[in-house]
């Protein structure tokens, strides 16, 4: 227990619950965060000496609340501090607090804390930054690095975002069932954004951005523990685990993007895949399908294929068609094109995606996929043009390099090649 690494892990895993409860109590984000900080400092002082509390979160909430009240009192009148023992002495109190922290209660607390981070007025990047700062407790410096901006710029961004949500007036009463499920949907979308922010990074940024993927998985697990019977929460968690399982195989030694077909599948993380598969199986039993479950089911089919040629493309294509009807979007149709081409050939896939061009004219992946299909059809000149547009729209150096590799192949040989996205 005197191991400081263990204390830090206990503090960070208790953070969402503790800050969420303190927010309900103080109704002010800054006060809640300060109270939590103070409680952590006390934990670092007393835990090594007194041993671990049975429930770290309850301890932190209780001590945080006391020190928050105390700080307010001190601001009001310069009264002397009560002795340390009365603030951190929890002999009897802890069990009482634990009783009050029943599941349903802190579930709404944490959901509220996450929900205020995804306020619709905030642009996606600010939602992500805010959630990472407030809920996950990631230092501003590290968030700044992930977003490739300076620390003070990120600090400002977070302060501005906080000011904005301070006026949002999220009610503190327990939400009704409809409101709760609406909040949950918004929060799941935000967690997915956090993950994608890390997942879409190139090899050079991966060191700074991979933690975003891990943090998103942590948040998904947290939500899953709070909503253990929600199939979409299982679906999202499964999806993130299955995607993240491929992380080690997605870039080669030179930092080039490796397509799924070319990935060394022995580098896929078996433990993450197994957990993802277990969760998607569990979700499917509920027979209440949703977009995250469908996407996880697609990822599961890839994960279950020992070799690329074992992939069940017919089932993947079918799942994409379900996803298209559930959440119609040109991007979903574009993603379907890969499976479509495997089943019906590049010509048919090209016909599928060509009508999307007006809507996806600014989308890197559209021209990447289009170029790939044209290349397979041996239409080198058209492929070159599509790849040219893809490079112009690339978001990362790795994306651009990947397309350039195709272009080089086109110049070297005019043989048809496969061009699927990773």
């Amino acid at each position, binding site marked *: *227990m*005197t*191991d400081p*690494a*263990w204390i830090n*892990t*206990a503090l*960070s*895993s*208790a953070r969402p619950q503790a800050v969420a409860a303190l927010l309900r109590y103080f109704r002010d984000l800054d006060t809640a965060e300060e109270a939590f900080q103070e409680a952590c400092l006390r934990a670092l002082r007393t835990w090594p000496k007194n041993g*671990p509390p*049975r*429930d*770290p979160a309850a301890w932190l909430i209780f001590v945080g609340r006391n020190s928050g009240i105390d700080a307010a009192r001190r601001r009001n009148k310069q009264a002397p501090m009560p002795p340390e023992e009365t603030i951190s002495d929890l002999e009897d109190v802890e069990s009482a607090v*634990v009783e009050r922290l029943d*599941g349903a209660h802190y579930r709404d607390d944490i959901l509220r804390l996450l929900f205020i981070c995804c306020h619709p007025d905030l642009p996606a990047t600010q939602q992500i930054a805010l959630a990472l700062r407030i809920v996950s407790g990631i230092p501003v410096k590290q968030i700044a690095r992930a977003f490739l901006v300076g620390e003070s710029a990120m600090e400002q961004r977070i302060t501005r975002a906080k000011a904005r949500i301070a006026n949002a007036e999220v009610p503190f009463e327990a939400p009704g069932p409809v409101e709760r499920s609406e909040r949950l949907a918004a929060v799941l979308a935000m967690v997915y954004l956090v993950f994608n922010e890390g997942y879409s990074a190139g090899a050079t940024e991966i060191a700074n951005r991979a933690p975003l993927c891990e943090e998103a998985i*942590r948040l998904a*697990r*947290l939500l*899953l*523990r709070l909503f*253990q*019977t929600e199939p979409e929460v*299982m679906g999202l*968690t499964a999806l993130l685990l299955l995607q993240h399982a491929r992380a080690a195989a997605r870039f080669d030694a030179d930092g080039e993007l490796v397509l799924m077909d070319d990935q060394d599948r022995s580098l896929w993380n078996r433990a993450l895949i*197994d*957990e993802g598969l*277990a*969760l998607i199986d*569990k979700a499917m*039993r509920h027979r209440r399908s949703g977009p995250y479950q469908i996407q996880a089911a697609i990822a599961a089919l890839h994960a279950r294929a020992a070799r690329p040629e074992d992939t069940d493309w017919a089932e993947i294509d079918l799942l994409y068609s379900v996803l298209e009807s559930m959440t119609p979007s040109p991007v979903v149709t574009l993603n379907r094109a890969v499976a479509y081409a495997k089943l019906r050939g590049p010509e048919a896939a090209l016909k599928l995606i060509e009508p999307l061009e007006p809507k996806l004219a600014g989308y890197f992946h559209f021209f990447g996929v289009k170029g790939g299909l044209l290349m397979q059809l041996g239409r080198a000149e058209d492929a070159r043009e599509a790849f040219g547009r893809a490079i112009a729209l690339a978001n990362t150096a790795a994306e651009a390099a990947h397309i350039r590799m195709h272009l080089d192949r086109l110049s070297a040989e005019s043989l048809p090649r496969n061009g699927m996205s990773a």
Partner: protein
Amino acid sequence: MLYAILCYNNEDVVCAWSKEQDDEVMARLQVVTGKLRDQGRLGPVARLMPTTAATTLRKTRDEPLVIDGPFAETKEQFLGFYVVDCATLDEAVDVAKDLAEANPGGGSYELRPISAFFAPREVA
């Protein structure tokens, strides 16, 4: 006598371990289990996925009920077990102490004597 050493811990905390932390703990635990294996005293060892991946089948009079969970109302969850051959309870306590030293922090080990043991085949 065979003892099952059942591991209980807060899965929120265990799931929050970084990969480095996890690898470190596992390496230290392997030193303990390696010693037992060399002495021919180590039986099956399992680490369980979090309870969120679990399903429960409740035996009811009619059709059994399949539900998610266990819903962890308790603060510590059943996260794994070791089967160890120990001549006395003291020996089992010593093994658990070694495990606790290798994996410090919260949680507990429950030492449960095994009354019957079947190992029909290796599955993994």
